[in-house]
Structures are given as C-alpha cells and as structure tokens.
C-alpha cells in the first residue's frame, strides 16, 4: 500500500507528467510555444517503433504461451464491448445525439498508444515487469471499436438509404492499414524475428533515450490538449466532461477483470486496464471524419485529448497499477 502511494506520488512528479503539465499550462496561457508538425510526427514514429520492437524482442526472449491468444481475444472483445457501454451511458446522461454519441464511443473502445507507452514507462521505473505481447494486443484493439460505433450510428437511420459515400470502399482498408497499426505491428514482428540480439544492436537508440523522447512528446501533447481545451471546452457540457472522467474507470475495471481472468502478470493487468481505459486521439478521429463527417470533432477530440488523456496520465495510470497489484495480490 505504501508502494502504491509511492508509485502514485512518483508518477505525479515524474518528468513525463510534468512535461505534459508544462505544455498544457503553456497552451492555456496562450504562449506561442509549439512543435513543428513534422517533429511531433517523427517523435510518434519513434515511440511506435521502439515500443513495438521492444515488445517483440521481449516475446522472442520469454517465449509465447497460450495467454497471448487469450489476451488478443480479450483485447478485441473489450474494444467491441466498451463502445456499447459508452454509447448507452452517453445516451443516458449526455444530451449528445446518436451520431455524436457513437463517434465518442468509438474513441473509448479504441486505445491511445501514448497512454500505453506512459504506463509501460511508469511500470519500468517501478521495476514491474509485463508481457511483451501486450503491444500486439494494443494494435488489435485499435479497430473493432470503430466498426461497432459505425453500426451504432447507422442503426438509428434504420431503413434510410446509405448517404453518398457512406459505404466508402477504401475506408476499411484505410482503417486496417493505418500507419500506427502497421508500424506498431511491423516493429513487433521485427523485434520478434531479431530477438534479444537485435535489441542489443539498437538498444542505445530505442531504450536509452526512450523516456526523454517521451517527455518531449508529452510536452507537445500537453500543448495540443491545452489548445484543444482552450478552443473546444465550450462544446463540452458538464455531463460530457463527467463521461470523460468516468468512462476510463469503467474501461479500466473491465480491463482489470479481463487481465485477471486470463492470468496476466501484475504489470500485464495494469496495462490491460490502461488500454481499456484509454481513448484514441489519432486513428479514430481521422476515421470518424471520413465515416461520420456529421459528428463534431470539437466534441470527441477535445474530450479524448483534453479530458481523458490528462486524467489517465496523472491519476489513472497509478490507480490502475495499484488496482492491478491489489487484484493480483502482488
């Protein structure tokens, strides 16, 4: 329990969280501090490559077991179920219409890889291990939520003809082959193929500077999230904000249960909870702009990036880790 509080405390004053806070504060204060788009994207490519590679190398090292298959199935199931819960909750408490509720729900079923990365980083600092294949689970969880949410949005238009472009032929391929998934999965496979010796070759690139790069990236995320809150907050009614704070807890509870049921390690359970709790802010928004252009991005992006991401980063991750330690008796 002392460990748990220590983890929570050390998380809040970690360079990672403080970097995010700096960016958030700078944006709210309207500082012109900003990252070039190309630099932000390069940092995210680095993080995806590094986290994928490390996951694959770790699997190559420790071997695969049946849990991997269970974990992937559990991830896919969570990604499909969470939007249903989120949608029902939004219909009940928020005034959002069907399309906007479905779009928001898609974000919470999918995942935020940066939240995942921050959680792995906090676990590593705390000396807690985890299953390397959770990276693959993360990749699997990106998509199902989108399908479920589109079905929810269209169920309402029962009998109505599909709008022009509604059954966009290229859309599914675009979603399945989106850059993040391909890079994450590909790097995982490379790590798997080259194993610990491959990791040793490039570890001074993908391990040593990893946390520092993450700090810079979180600084930028803070800037973007803060700017989003400044311009988008007025689109978020109180119940919607409440949703953005509660839904991660519901997702985390499901993730905890699933992780425990399939027998993950303490760190693995914490990560499963984090994935379930996190909300997408890259892949799903882009998919929504194509598949549900009527939905308002000021709502879903601001909620995911301005409310849920900071919540998970500061309060959520230590909480989910603590809960994982409790349930696994660790």
């Amino acid at each position, binding site marked *: 329990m002392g460990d748990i509080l220590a983890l929570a405390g050390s998380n809040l004053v970690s360079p990672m969280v403080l970097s995010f806070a700096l960016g958030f504060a700078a944006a709210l204060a309207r500082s012109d501090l900003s990252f*070039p*788009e190309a630099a932000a994207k390069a940092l995210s490519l680095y993080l995806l490559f590094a986290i994928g590679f490390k996951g694959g190398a770790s699997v190559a090292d420790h071997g695969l077991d049946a849990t991997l298959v269970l974990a992937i199935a559990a991830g896919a199931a969570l990604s499909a179920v969470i939007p249903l819960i989120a949608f029902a909750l939004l219909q009940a408490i928020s005034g959002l219409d069907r399309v906007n509720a479905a779009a928001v729900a898609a974000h919470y079923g999918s995942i935020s890889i940066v939240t995942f990365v921050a959680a792995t980083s906090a676990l590593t600092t705390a000396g807690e291990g985890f299953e390397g294949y959770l990276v693959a689970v993360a990749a699997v969880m990106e998509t199902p939520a989108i399908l479920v949410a589109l079905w929810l949005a269209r169920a309402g238009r029962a009998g109505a003809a599909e709008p022009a472009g509604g059954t966009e032929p290229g859309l599914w391929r675009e979603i399945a082959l989106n850059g993040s998934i391909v890079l994450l999965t590909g790097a995982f496979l490379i790590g798997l193929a080259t194993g610990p010796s491959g990791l040793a070759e490039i570890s001074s690139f993908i391990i040593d500077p990893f946390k520092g790069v993450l700090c810079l990236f979180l600084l930028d995320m803070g800037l*973007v999230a803060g700017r989003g809150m400044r311009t988008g907050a007025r689109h978020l009614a109180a119940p919607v904000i409440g949703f953005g704070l509660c839904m991660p807890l519901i997702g985390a509870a499901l993730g905890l249960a699933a992780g425990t049921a399939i027998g993950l390690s303490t760190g693995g359970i914490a990560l499963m909870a984090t994935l379930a709790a996190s909300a997408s*802010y890259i892949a799903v928004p882009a998919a929504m*702009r*194509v598949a549900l252009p009527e939905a308002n991005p*000021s709502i879903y992006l601001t909620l995911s990036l301005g409310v849920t991401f900071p919540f998970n980063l500061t309060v959520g991750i230590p909480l989910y880790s603590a809960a994982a330690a409790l349930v696994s008796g660790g």
Partner: protein
Amino acid sequence: MELHPKKRLEVIVEAPALARILRFLDERGVKGYTILPAIAGSGASGRIWSREGQVGDAGRMVAIVAIMDEARLEQLFDDLYGIVSRQIGIVSISDCMVVRKDAF
C-alpha cells in the same frame, strides 16, 4: 504565345477527406492537380485550428488546386460539392489562362 482560358478549382478541405476527393477527381478523369499544405485556419463554424504539433490527420487541412476546362468542371462540380459540403472546408472557382490547348 496563344493562351487558353481554363478554370482554377481550389478546394480547401480537412486532410482525412483528401483520399476520397482525389479518388473522385481521378474517376472523373481530372488528370492534373496539386496539393498544398495549410498550417492554420478559421471557418464559418468559428473554430480555429492549427497544424502545429499535431500528430494525427483529423485537425489538418490541405488545399487542392486543379486547373481544368470549364466543360469538365461543370460536369463534376455538383458531385464534388456534394462530397466537400459534408466535410469541413470550402470550394472556390476562378478564371485563369494556360498555354496547353489539350483538354484537361
């Protein structure tokens, strides 16, 4: 040198819709277009977006410039507008002159 009148179509639109619009232009036989990046903007909806620091495509805008014959433009304009009007963006048309006479 002899100059020929053409129409210059300019579509400023959010990046996630770009693939769909290019597919449409290709299908309609528009052979020439150029895509320029935008860094920030403000729309009728009042929202100000900025490209800075963003990783995803959702908040980005691009400008598509396509110079073509008036006749071709007239054929495709309504359908194009149907696509763009569902997205965040604006379509405008202006006159210009080019050298190449061949239809495009």
